[in-house]
């Protein structure tokens, strides 16, 4: 009995020590989630512009989906087009580059690796103005293409790093095995290299897309007089006050994102279940084979 008491005291001490931690963690997480919740809440605000809470209404949602909100949708579509283009280009170049930079030694490789670090660590405004000057001096017209190029320039380094992180010694052995079994370099690349880094490719794509769709500075500086992306539009509207329909739009985007994550989760679970089932089945077969072997002996 005395021991039980002692252990309980030790446990109690541990529990007491946990309280400040729990409070701290909750506060930090709250600081991340409260803004999101407030943003969603104010999509139901019965006011022309979001300054303070004027009462509950749902009418911003039907209004959002009516034709009155042409600007907002145009900005969103423009943002999506840019994000998709930037993601595709960045992933292709990033995947090839990640593999190539890991695999081959060539003159200037160190330099390229250093250049890849620059867009990540240098302030975005510096990236933006340096590209802006080049485009202006060469006389490139600012617009969709320049924004996509700008986005790719900071997405590619992330894609390369994610892919490089995925390639381990294992992948190289796999490639050797593939070629040993008679596959050409191209076949090996398509059938072995790419599938073995697929999770990395997915996360590189996800990262590129989220970076691009939320970017303000480069989109703002390289847009010229053309159409604004959604974040740039929000930044300019901010001067006169954000309208609740923008909150409604971003809320819809949050819901779409959560929905997408849920689907991914379900798919993963189904995949795991299937693997578990096939594992159980193979276990059964192994056991049967072992029994047969024992009987034979």
């Amino acid at each position, binding site marked *: 009995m005395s*021991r039980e008491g002692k252990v309980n005291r*030790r446990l109690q001490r541990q529990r007491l020590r946990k309280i400040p931690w729990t409070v701290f963690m909750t506060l930090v997480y709250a600081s991340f989630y409260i803004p999101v919740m407030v943003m969603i809440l104010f999509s139901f605000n019965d006011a022309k512009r979001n300054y303070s809470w004027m009462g509950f209404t749902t009418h911003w949602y039907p209004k959002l989906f009516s034709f009155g909100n042409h600007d907002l949708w145009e900005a969103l579509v423009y943002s999506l087009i840019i994000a998709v283009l930037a993601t595709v280009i960045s992933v292709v170049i990033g995947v090839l580059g990640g593999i190539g930079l890991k695999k081959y030694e060539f003159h200037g490789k160190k330099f390229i690796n250093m250049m890849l670090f620059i867009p990540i660590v240098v302030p975005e405004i510096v990236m933006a103005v340096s590209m802006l000057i080049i485009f202006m001096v060469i006389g490139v017209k600012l617009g969709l293409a320049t924004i996509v190029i700008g986005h790719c320039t900071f997405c590619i380094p992330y894609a390369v790093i994610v892919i490089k992180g995925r390639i381990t010694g294992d992948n190289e052995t796999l490639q050797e095995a593939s070629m040993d079994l008679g596959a050409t370099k191209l076949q090996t690349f398509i059938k072995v290299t790419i599938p073995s880094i697929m999770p990395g490719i997915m996360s590189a794509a996800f990262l590129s897309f989220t970076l691009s769709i939320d970017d303000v500075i480069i989109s703002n500086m390289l847009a010229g007089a053309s159409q604004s992306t959604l974040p740039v539009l929000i930044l300019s509207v901010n001067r006169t006050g954000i309208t609740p329909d923008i909150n409604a739009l971003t809320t819809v985007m949050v819901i779409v994102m959560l929905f997408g994550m849920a689907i991914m989760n379900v798919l993963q679970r189904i995949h795991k279940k299937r693997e578990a089932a096939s594992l159980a089945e193979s276990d059964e077969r192994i056991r049967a084979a072992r029994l047969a072997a024992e009987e034979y*002996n």
Partner: protein
Amino acid sequence: MKKTIVALKGVDKWYGNNHVVKNLNLEVAEGEFLTLLGPSGCGKTTTLRMIAGFEDASAGRIEVQGESVDEKEPYQRDVNTVFQSYSLFPHMNVFDNIAYGPRIKKVPKEQIERDVEEMLRLVQMTGYEKRKPDALSGGQKQRIAIARALINNPRVLLLDEPLGALDLKLRKQMQIELKRLQRKLGITFIYVTHDQEEAMSMSDRIAVMKDGVILQLDKPTEIYNRPNCRFVADFIGESNILSGVVTLAEDDLLTVQTQSGTVKTKGAGFEKGEEIDISVRTESLSCSAEPTEEFCIKAKIRDFTNMGTVTKTSLILPDGKEIRMSTFEQDPNLSEGQEVYVSWKPEKSTPIHRDKKEAESCQ
């Protein structure tokens, strides 16, 4: 009997529904070299970690020097650990690593310097003070880890497979060194390993563990010569196990009827009609072309394998079972496929109870 320094009383450990250590009772004497030996997952490392304080026992009591340590945190316990992965602090050089414990205890600087130097001499690493762990070989790292633990003058040193990551030759050498060190310092060592040879060569006593239970706790020679259950017989050294029924029990000499013939063994506490297993070490077997007097069973030589110092002969009994014999030299009179007669000295074999549950019979 020497004073008990570490005592585990009815210790249990559960991980969720997993019962990894079951009602463990163990007393370790002062100055003893005790080894917890068993296959992976037998609970030996968990037991060690409970003594060190990294894990809490789910039930029972652990005492060091007669005092319960259940309420003490690892840093409050008078035991030190040598980890399998060495766990040297990578950001500190050898000197700082060894000085870590004394510095925490605020030992005066000059004293620390003297102690570290002595420890380095003890583990034969003098002159390595300024090296970083990265620049050391596996064996050197382990010496430093041992020095780092010993400088604190622990009452008990816990060693968790300390030689597991070393190559065979170095491991053999370190075994001898560790044993000498323990003798010299007179510190109690509790040593965890899955390597039976290592356990045999170093320990004063061995506790053979399986599934969270100590099957047999005894001197190495006793464990080797008198295994008390099939598992121990099988796990320690190389044994042949034959099953049969006792047909005659005179004093301690048992006559046993097996499927391959009648054999003899020696052991107390067995009755006529009892089903038993007999464990015979491979080196206790002998075979000849002619039948021997006392008893023998027929067998056919399958093949020979030269292992360097010994030759293993694989024999097939009439019931199809394979047994192995090891000899220093291959008998030139024997050849593959030959029919031979196998026998052993009854006292060189061990009868093992079968009817009772293994765990019970082994306690």
